[in-house]
């Protein structure tokens, strides 16, 4: 399969080289419907001008794409643009000289870059500690609660829960009707990282890791442990469904009406519209009113585009041109409508509003509204090295909580120990 992809990439090189257009190699991780939309964006771009050709290549999941990019960089065969996900941000940003900051790239070739053009919720996650954008947010999503309107109506619940306290009072009714109340597709992202943002809690020292790599994790805190004790209670009571770590397995439980509610990504919206045969709605990520009275915004997940270093001026100019095209309002609105990912610029958001899109599909606006809620000190994101492995440590600990292999205290002590060992190790690589 890989060789086939190489072959096609090779053929594409031959086919277009003769036209003397500059190629922009773009490696992405968007499969299924999302991959089709990426292809459509590429077609639009290639049709819009004749100097450059964008060649998108699907490289597998987020981790696969990052690994492919790293291997290619080491072999000096890196693409011009690569999509790197939230957990990999520290890896690429802390490798000086691996990328050209998009702010610099656009300033140099497109005559300027204004961070304020981007909506507040996406502005900082892929920026350095001074706020300079290193990566261009691409598929920006945020965790949302999806609910099955039919089931809630059947049980006699008017509105989905806005707090976990409300959820606790609804869950028994849903269970009595023969459904699980909740499933969720990404516990590190939704129940840990965004849990901290929503409740304005610090998750790592050193300004959540933005200021330094010599940091420690702060997950082992009372609010987190309280939350996970509750989740374990819900699981044991049959309110919470756990279908493994796979994203799709938990989403399927919602699609197949096993669970009344599901926590997923705002980017799941388009896919769910196509696969469900019932009415569903979206609402904000619930919070504990016992922890915070007014919840804060969540931060973006998904991934960003990074311009890789070591390319000719000509190619960098082409890359900058595509990034400018990509952040244009028309394309952002198209991307937002087709996928459910939030538009990244204020102008694109205004365009969607002016077009009346949210009048007809109000559920599509929830993600961006949640990102635009008031921010706090700890809502701009995190930047932690070896975070892919830290997430594995967390997954393992959460599994142990669920299976009863470890108490909540033991599990969080294990997370603290495992994550800090990894952070010390990562810090040593950054010299």
């Amino acid at each position, binding site marked *: 399969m890989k060789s086939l992809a190489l072959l096609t990439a090779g053929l594409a090189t031959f086919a277009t080289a003769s036209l003397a257009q500059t190629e922009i190699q773009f490696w992405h991780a968007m499969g299924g419907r999302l991959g089709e939309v990426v292809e459509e964006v590429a077609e639009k771009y290639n049709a819009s001008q004749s100097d450059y050709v964008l060649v998108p290549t699907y490289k597998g999941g987020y981790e696969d794409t990052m*690994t492919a990019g790293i291997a290619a960089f080491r072999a000096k065969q890196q693409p011009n643009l690569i999509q790197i996900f939230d957990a990999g941000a520290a890896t690429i940003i802390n*490798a000086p000289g691996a990328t050209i900051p998009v702010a610099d790239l656009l300033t140099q070739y497109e005559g300027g870059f204004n961070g304020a053009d981007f909506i507040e919720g996406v502005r900082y996650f892929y920026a350095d500690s001074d706020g300079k954008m290193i990566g261009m947010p691409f598929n920006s999503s945020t965790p949302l609660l999806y609910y099955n309107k039919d089931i809630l109506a059947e049980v006699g619940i008017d509105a989905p829960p806005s707090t976990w306290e409300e959820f606790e009072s609804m869950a028994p009714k849903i269970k009595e009707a023969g459904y699980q109340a909740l499933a969720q597709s990404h516990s590190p992202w939704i129940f840990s990282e965004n849990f901290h943002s929503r409740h304005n809690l610090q998750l790592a020292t050193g300004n959540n890791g933005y200021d330094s790599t010599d940091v420690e994790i702060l997950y082992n805190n009372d609010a987190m442990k309280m939350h996970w004790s509750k989740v374990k209670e819900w699981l044991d009571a049959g309110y919470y469904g756990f279908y493994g*770590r796979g994203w799709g*397995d938990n989403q399927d*439980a919602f699609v197949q009406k096993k669970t009344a509610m599901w926590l997923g990504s705002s980017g799941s919206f388009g896919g769910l519209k196509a696969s469900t045969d019932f009415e569903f709605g979206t609402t904000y990520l619930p919070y504990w009113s016992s922890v915070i009275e007014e919840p804060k915004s969540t931060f973006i997940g998904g991934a960003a585009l990074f311009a890789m270093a070591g390319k000719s001026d000509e190619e960098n100019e082409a890359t900058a041109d595509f990034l400018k095209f990509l952040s244009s309002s028309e394309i952002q609105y198209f991307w937002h409508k087709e996928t459910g990912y939030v538009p990244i610029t204020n102008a694109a958001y205004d365009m969607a509003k002016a077009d009346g899109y949210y009048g007809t599909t109000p559920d599509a606006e929830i993600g961006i509204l949640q990102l635009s809620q008031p921010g706090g000190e700890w809502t701009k994101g995190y930047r932690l090295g070896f975070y892919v*492995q830290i997430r594995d440590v967390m997954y393992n600990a959460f599994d142990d909580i669920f299976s009863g292999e470890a108490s909540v205290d033991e599990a969080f002590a294990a997370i603290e120990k495992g994550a800090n060992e990894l952070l010390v190790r990562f810090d040593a690589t*950054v010299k």
Partner: protein
Amino acid sequence: MKRVQFEHSAIPYMFIAPQIIIIVVFFLWPAAQAVYQSFLLEDAFGLSSQFVWFRNYSDTIFNDAWLQAAGFTIVFSTLVTALSLGLALLLAVKANEVIRGASTYKTLLMWAYAIAPPVAGLMGNLMFNPLIGDLYIFMNSIGFDFDHKLDPYDAGFVVVLISVWKQVSVNFIFFLSGLQGIPKGVQEAALMDCKSSTRRFWTITFPLLAPTTFFLMVINITYAFFETFGIIDTTTQGAPGGATTTLVYKVFQDGFRGADIGGSSAQSVVLMIMVLVLTVIQFRFIEKKVHY
């Protein structure tokens, strides 16, 4: 004293050259690279590199996650090897006795040989899917509280089952040809001396199969160590709680997904030494009991 030596040409070296080149390029060179990398601490992109002696080893070997993986690897390899050899032997002995429809029967048993481990894993994953998996539903319907997404033992059961199923057919082919290689005369002589077929099996057939069994044991342990990677990646991915993570899978997780090349190289070097020791043990101690 002057040793007598014959003049010889370079031709023999040319004949073995392709094999030597293959070994050097595909085995020795990568192994040397792994040893070299295991002493380096680098950022993922290889932009900065430091020589750190044994730090990668002390960071990644003998910590909790590694010990858990090592423990599982030992249990898993033992189970997979023992079960797939035992089942294959039983099936081969029985198939060898079948007279009517023998070839159909044998073909059906060899069927799974053609299936690659990741494909076997995908099929297994589908059969154990909590929402639509037949085996998952079956296990729960016969009274087990089966949940391989949560229970480490259930998850272990799933990966062992799929790994054994995949390997039985390979072993079956070898055992069957081994059985057919046993001279008829020996079998008939045994038949005259002893009425019990079980006893005949253990005293005559099994010792004569020993070379095959030994060979298969080496192959199966290697299979359980390395090739089951594809099955684990497509089913449990090492979950729950790292309970089905083998050492090889951990090398992949840390090096490939986690971009920690030094740490995962150190783990592969340790793995290399383990397999080396295991092979030496097998050939020095067990092979002595095998009569060809």
